[in-house]
Structure formats: C-alpha cells, structure tokens
C-alpha cells in the first residue's frame, strides 16, 4: 500500500512560439538571453550561469523585487546539471530549486526535459518536469498526496496558448 504513495509528480507544458527554433534554443541556452525572460513578473535574475555541455552546470538565482511586498529580497536559486543536449532539439537537466535560507524544508528536486520542434516560422515547445523529491528527502510522496487531496493540473492554459498566435 505504501508503494502507492511513491511516484513522481509530473508536470507537462506545451507552447507554440512565433519565433524560429534557433531563437528559442538560444533563449534557453545563453545566459544573457535567459536572464531576460526567466522571471516571472516582479522578480529579477540576480545570477545566471550556463555551462552548456553534458555534465555542465545551470545556475539561476531569481530575486523578488520590491513589487512582491513581504517577499521582496527573497532569493530562489535553481542549480542543475545538463544530462542531454541535442542542439536546437532537446535539452534535459536534473535540478533542484529552493528558497534561500529554507533549503532544508523548501527544496524541490526535479528533472526537466525540453523538446523543440522546428515549424519554420514558429517553434513548438514541450516541457516535461518531473518532481522527484520534495522537502528533506521525501521522494515525492507528498506531491502524490497532494494529488489525492485535490491536486489539479492546470492544463487549461495550454489550449488557450496553443490556439492563440503564441
């Protein structure tokens, strides 16, 4: 029965971007470009290092701006290692994300699998994120619990984005 609790929380995203595939690839793999969009709103990227080779490091620190009120100044680092690089097509990395100062309790380990498809003028993107472990070494048990207690994936946004002009 316990084994039912084990498993991964899987997140799947799809987008269609009105840009050629090399622009999307560079946005993900060049530090100066990634800084410009990694956001999200009300945050800035304080640090960004991308060592784009197998086993290379991806390190991004996002900081809450003044606009985030009580969270301002909070730092959310993400550190990862590239596990697959197929130029312009596929990028995978294992990473962990945490809230600085609460690393022991607020760490999410995740694997990330990005696939780009060249449609000429546009690029299709799929991103698969698997949460493998949360908190102090609980291998996604609680994430699965979360699903049981009313976890809801938010794929509604997907349709909207795919039907729109990106």
């Amino acid at each position, binding site marked *: 029965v316990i084994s039912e609790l084990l498993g991964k929380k899987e997140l799947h995203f799809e987008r269609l971007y009105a840009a050629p595939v090399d622009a999307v690839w560079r946005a993900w793999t060049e530090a100066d470009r990634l800084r410009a969009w990694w*956001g999200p709103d009300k945050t800035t990227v304080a640090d960004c290092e991308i060592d784009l080779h197998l086993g290379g490091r991806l390190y991004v620190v996002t900081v809450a701006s003044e606009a985030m009120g009580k969270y301002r100044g909070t730092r959310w680092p993400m550190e990862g290692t590239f596990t697959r690089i197929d130029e312009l097509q596929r990028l995978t990395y294992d990473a962990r994300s945490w809230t600085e100062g609460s690393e*022991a309790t607020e760490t999410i380990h995740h694997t990330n699998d990005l696939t780009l498809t060249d449609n000429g003028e546009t690029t299709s993107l799929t991103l698969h994120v698997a949460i493998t472990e949360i908190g102090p070494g609980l291998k996604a048990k609680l994430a699965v619990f979360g699903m049981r207690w009313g976890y809801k994936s938010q794929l509604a946004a997907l349709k909207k984005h795919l039907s729109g002009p990106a």
Partner: protein
Amino acid sequence: MWVAYDDRVKAAVFSALGEPNRLHIVDLLRTNSFAVGEIAETVGIRQPQVSKHLKVLAESGIVSVEPRARQRIYHLQAEPFDQIARWVDSFERLWESRLDSLAGYLQTNETEEGQS
C-alpha cells in the same frame, strides 16, 4: 515564486512523515478512522509504539483524536497536505508564468533583431 507557509508546520509535517511506520499509519488513516488497537493490529507494531507515533502525528496536525466511549479514535486531517499541495502547485504556476514570459521575450527580441 512559490508560496511560503509556516516553517514550523512544514518542518513538523516533513519530520513526522519521514518515518516509515508513521507513513504507514497515515496511509491506513486515509481509508478510515481507527482506534489505537486497530491501527496496531493492521500495521503490525506494538500498541505503545503506535501511541508514540500517533502523538508525533497529532503534534504536527496530521491527525486529530476524538474520544469515543472508552476509545480514542484517530482521524487524518487534510490541512497539512493541502498546504504542501499548494506549495507544489505554486511550482507549476511558476512554470506557466515563465513560459508566457518567454513568449513576450521572443516577440520583443524578434522585432529588435529584425530591425538591426
């Protein structure tokens, strides 16, 4: 980014669930509410041990206890799991927002590069 929630609650919940027997008890209580004796019998550990585990689970808000006749019946509480679910959910929303942001960036960047 993702939602913060009470550090003490979070630490207590993670700590309480980090022990295999306690996780087993929680798993059992998901199906129904039980008295200590029933839990001991089903989980296969001695009653005094079960009582100790239930005490830890109660202190972290994972279970509540209801006196019924001469028994104490244990119930699972949803709130700690809801809190953790919200935390993990916020990670998903972060990615939604980030991928939207990429669309905006690509549009701006294309325009700029097109002009140069």
